């Protein structure tokens, strides 16, 4: 049920030179449930790319296929290829990928509840050696997230949701990644905190050169910060383009931004798209 037809004129980033490229992958859970049906996308070095779509579209599955957290959930890439800096990575373990610079920040934050904030951050450096450098990176994380420094001795289970999201991102930074797969950072957070987190993502991207593949239901904010976007529906990419052209696209406005030619839609008018309620930013 592709509501959105065809792609617009925007040029797809060149997959050949991309930091990460996903080529026509299929993902199956439990040997039978086909979830991704040929997804392709590319993340050029130094960019923020958004992966958009409704509940169950396959965003998380795509990110987990890349980080290979899929295997722990009995999922499997059965077709296609994933290339990171030109290397096939579908068979690598999450540990191998983290060492190569690809790390996922999972949906729902997943902090270690009984570890302190600082211990959580330090677990991110598990694959690294060299205490002095790790200390320096810890200071760097605290510079980006000053709130975490104030709470460094608190158990992560007891801090606020926004702070937990910061811990999750900070923890990933401690691995010194070149590419962060960021899954729904806005989930369950107040708009102000969401904004704060996206601002930090942008600064990390610009100052530290970290590339992001960002899965979001909140299309509005994601397209505000991303360079390029892909829209997934039912395990397929139905539309992609640079952020500005996606924002201008009528279908995107109607179905994903809750706007139409006649201005903002009321909830009632889009009732039959209930599934997408959360999209209305």
């Amino acid at each position: 049920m592709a509501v959105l037809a065809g792609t617009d004129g925007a040029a797809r980033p060149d997959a050949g030179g991309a930091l990460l490229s996903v080529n026509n992958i299929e993902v199956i859970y439990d040997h039978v449930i086909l979830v991704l049906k040929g997804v392709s996308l590319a993340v050029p070095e130094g960019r923020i790319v958004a992966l958009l779509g409704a509940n169950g579209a396959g965003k998380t599955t795509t990110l987990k296929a890349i980080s290979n957290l899929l295997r722990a959930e009995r999922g499997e890439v059965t077709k296609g290829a994933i290339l990171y800096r030109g290397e096939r990575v579908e068979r690598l373990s999450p540990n191998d990928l983290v060492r190569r610079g690809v790390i996922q920040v999972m949906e729902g934050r997943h902090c270690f509840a009984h570890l302190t904030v600082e211990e959580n951050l330090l677990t991110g450096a598990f694959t690294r050696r060299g205490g002095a450098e790790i200390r320096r990176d810890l200071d760097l994380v605290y510079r980006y997230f000053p709130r975490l420094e104030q709470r460094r001795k608190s158990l992560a289970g007891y801090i606020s949701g926004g702070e937990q999201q910061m811990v999750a991102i900070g923890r990933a930074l401690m691995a010194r990644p070149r590419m962060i797969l960021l899954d729904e950072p806005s989930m369950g957070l107040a708009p102000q905190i969401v904004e704060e987190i996206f601002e930090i993502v942008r600064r990390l991207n610009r100052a530290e050169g970290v590339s992001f593949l960002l899965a979001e239901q909140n299309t509005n904010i994601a397209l505000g910060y991303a360079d390029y976007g892909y829209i997934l529906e039912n395990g397929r990419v139905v539309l992609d383009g640079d952020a500005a052209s996606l924002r201008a696209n009528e279908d995107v406005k109607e179905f994903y931004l809750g706007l139409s030619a006649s201005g903002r839609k009321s909830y009632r008018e889009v009732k039959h798209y209930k599934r997408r309620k959360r999209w209305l930013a």
Partner: protein
Amino acid sequence: MELLHALVIDPIGAIADNPEFLLEVVIGGLLTGVMYSLVALGFVLIYKASGIFNFAQGVMVLFAALCFVGQLQLGMPLVMALLSTVAIMIALAFVIERVVLRPLVNQEPIILFMATIGITFFLTGLGQLVWGGDVKTLDIGLPKDPLIIGGVLVNEFDLTAAAVAGLLVAGLALFFQKTSIGRALRAVADDHQAALSVGIPLKTIWVIVWSVAGIVGLVAGIMWGTNLGVQFSLALVALKALPVLILGGFTSIPGAIVGGLIVGAGEKVAEVFWGPAFGGAIEDWFAYVLALVFLLFRPQGLFGERIIERV
């Protein structure tokens, strides 16, 4: 009336008459409790890191002690035998990860529990095949003389055992709190998936916890073996670990230690002072009754982990 005498008046009278004797009994019990604590600790480590209820923990104690005493009997020097047994327990952890845990990853906990029952039978058989089924005396020259400290009679060996166990627990605590691997172990215990996502390899972590549980088992095995001889009944110590776990909470390291001490001291006191009222042998079932009471009134145990829930 007679019952009242047997249950209340006589025991309390006995305690009041000779409080030093009570103290002796409690101390003796605490020192036995240290052994229970060690076995329970092995359970807790594995349960926390992998969610597996390791039925084989008791037999690991027996197996480690058998390997140790067997090598001593072959004429190996003490330190060599100790190191070699540690190496065997680590090798065992590798084999268990490779042959049992890895193929069963993502299976239901009950299936993994069954697998540990399989490990139990395998290790029992292997131990007897290699080292024979006879009772072996273990004497590594630990002092065994009774001592009088402050008017209280204690056994020197029990003190040594307690000191060794204390050192082991302190060492483990340091390892868990201060090292990167220890932190990773706690992270895995909290959230497997998140641990994977930051690049902590679960397989390595499992090998480490099973090795640590094996080494803790070895220490327990040496202590018990010195007391009782190395024999199959060592594996049954594990049956005492179950009530200890119910008391302390399955996921709590301090709980395992305190639970072991309570069970050890409790059953001795019950045996000595209340035993006559029941015709003796309370020691054998006291721990289970205590555990039952806990299950009814405090099922998460003394130190059952606070469940942090926050969205």
